[in-house]
């Protein structure tokens, strides 16, 4: 296990470097270099900011030196200061991480809780009405523009029915609320955004569970289980589901970029003060230091998500857990 973990950790190092290189290239896509275009396009950037930028990127030096200078600071998570309010970029990002992370974790739990049973049920009742209905739902989920779903939900449940608030993460007057009330208030605010965030994931993961379940139900050990007279429930949940859960973990890990990417859309629509909204407003204001810092941070978070999924996979799959030891 330790061997596997170590190997996996070492494998992420070149990817980390790649991330910084691509981010660096993106900065330098701008004709005339980052400092010129950035300050030119942004009236809020003063002469002082321009000098700071030049120093930050070491623009008078050759490209590889520029990259190394930038990398040295990036490793210490020093991405300079925001154009908009001159605060340190990393501080601005840090205060946004908890909200986005908690919404994404809640979303993942919900995706898992809904998608697995849906997938298992539609596989075990293949071609039934339920199976056809979920297939329809899956394709709708894949094809639905998430921001449109958000608008429709806002119109229906926010404007027409008035059941849920349509913006922000909590009400304005929270001072005289008890702890329980406050949690309830935040929960009410999160219903619509989380519904939007989970739809794609539920569609994808349930489809995946369905097909891996179908594959498993054809295996010999399932036939054996049925032949020895086990009830169908045991066959499906004990013998089938356990094996279908393995790849589901990987898929959940792979869905991390999609979830974080989706946060740009639903956070900006529902005015949730998380990383997605910060990225959106920074892009709007052409606040380049924040954009670049966030690109790196978000890629690292994604990498971390994949790594955690891999570790979970190794923990539950003895083939990987023990396979490392043998070698």
């Amino acid at each position, binding site marked *: 296990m330790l061997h596997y973990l170590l190997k996996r950790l070492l494998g992420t190092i*070149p*990817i980390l470097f*790649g*991330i910084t290189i*691509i981010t660096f290239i*993106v*900065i330098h*896509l*701008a004709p005339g270099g980052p400092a010129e*275009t950035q300050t030119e396009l942004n009236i809020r950037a003063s002469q002082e900011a321009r000098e700071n930028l030049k120093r930050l990127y070491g623009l008078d030096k050759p490209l590889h030196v520029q990259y190394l200078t930038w990398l040295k600071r990036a490793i210490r998570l020093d991405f300079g200061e925001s154009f908009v309010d001159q605060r340190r970029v990393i501080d601005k990002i840090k205060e946004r991480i908890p909200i986005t992370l908690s919404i994404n974790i809640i979303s993942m739990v919900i995706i898992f809780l809904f998608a697995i049973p849906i997938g298992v049920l539609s596989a075990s009742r293949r071609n039934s009405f339920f199976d056809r209905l979920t297939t329809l739902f899956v*394709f*709708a989920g*894949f*094809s*639905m*523009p*998430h*921001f*449109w779903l958000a*608008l*429709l939900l*806002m*119109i229906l449940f926010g*404007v027409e029915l008035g059941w849920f608030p349509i913006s922000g993460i909590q009400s304005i007057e929270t001072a005289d609320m008890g702890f329980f009330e406050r949690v309830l208030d935040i929960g009410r605010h999160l219903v619509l955004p989380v519904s939007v965030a989970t739809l794609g994931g539920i569609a994808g993961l349930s489809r995946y569970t369905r097909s891996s379940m*179908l594959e498993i139900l054809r295996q010999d050990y399932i036939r054996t289980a049925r032949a020895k007279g086990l009830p169908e429930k045991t066959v499906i949940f004990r013998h089938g589901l356990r094996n279908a859960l393995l790849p589901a973990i990987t898929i959940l890990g792979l869905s991390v*970029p*999609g979830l*974080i*990417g*989706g946060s*740009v*859309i639903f956070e*900006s*629509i529902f005015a949730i003060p998380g990383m997605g909204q910060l*990225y*959106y407003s920074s*892009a*709007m204001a*052409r606040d*380049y230091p924040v*954009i*670049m810092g*966030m*690109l790196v941070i*978000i*890629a690292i978070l*994604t*990498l971390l998500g*994949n790594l955690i999924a891999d570790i979970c996979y190794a923990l539950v799959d003895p083939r990987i857990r023990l396979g490392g030891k043998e070698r």
Partner: protein
Amino acid sequence: MRSLRRAWLFFRDNPVGAVAFFIILSISSLALLAPYIAPYSPTEIDVENVLSPPSPEHPFGTDELGRDVLTRMLYGARVSLSVGFIAVGIAVLIGIIIGAIAGYYGGMIDAILMRFVDIMLTFPTIFLILAIVVIVEQSIWTIMVVIGLTGWMDVARLVRAEFLTLKEREFVQAAKAIGVSNFKIIFRHILPNSLAPVFVAAIFGIAGAILTESALSFLGFGIKPPEPSWGNILTSGKDNIEVAWWLSLFPGLAIFITTLSFNLLGEALRDSLDPRLRKNNQ
């Protein structure tokens, strides 16, 4: 003749795929004919008809500047479809080249290229796209290129997998033995045999590209008003969410139906191209 017959057989066995295909065909024709069939001008402002609900004169209503929503959607279809096709064209081209090189040469080249694919996959696409579009000049062309540049990884993986198996086959060995150049083996002998899954991925990719473009335009980083796109009509839908539901409903429905059709067509093609799946369905 043979391909016509194959198409007929495909449609006969996949009614859903057939319906999806004809929806795509109709939307494409509407888009092509937009200047001739649109009842109004897509950009002309009509102050007397601001935000009027659907009526016989304006079946899908008007927006905050009095422009006919149906007309703007017809023109928006041109944007969405052309971005979908061209962005995917770019992605497929990059994916084929990288996947073919990695799969054919293997070894170090393969390891490096596939690591590059992994790196690209760790960036949530929308973040990378937003970063690029705020730096380069925004136009429909840059949107196409940027979506293409960030969407080739799946194709590369597919092509690589096909190449890994195909390069061991006799016909490739034979070509090598008689001294055919690597370039010719890759593009003349192996590639044509590995295109089926790429074609399916491309159809799914068009749906994805249309969704990305509409999301970008909705957020204000894609097609800029007054030029209409399905995504930026939805932006006015959001700005007028309390008073004008039609601005949110119809353009979104257009995106939904279009991407759904591409996804269903892709699924039908995949089923009919994958003999393993076909057998299991019986």
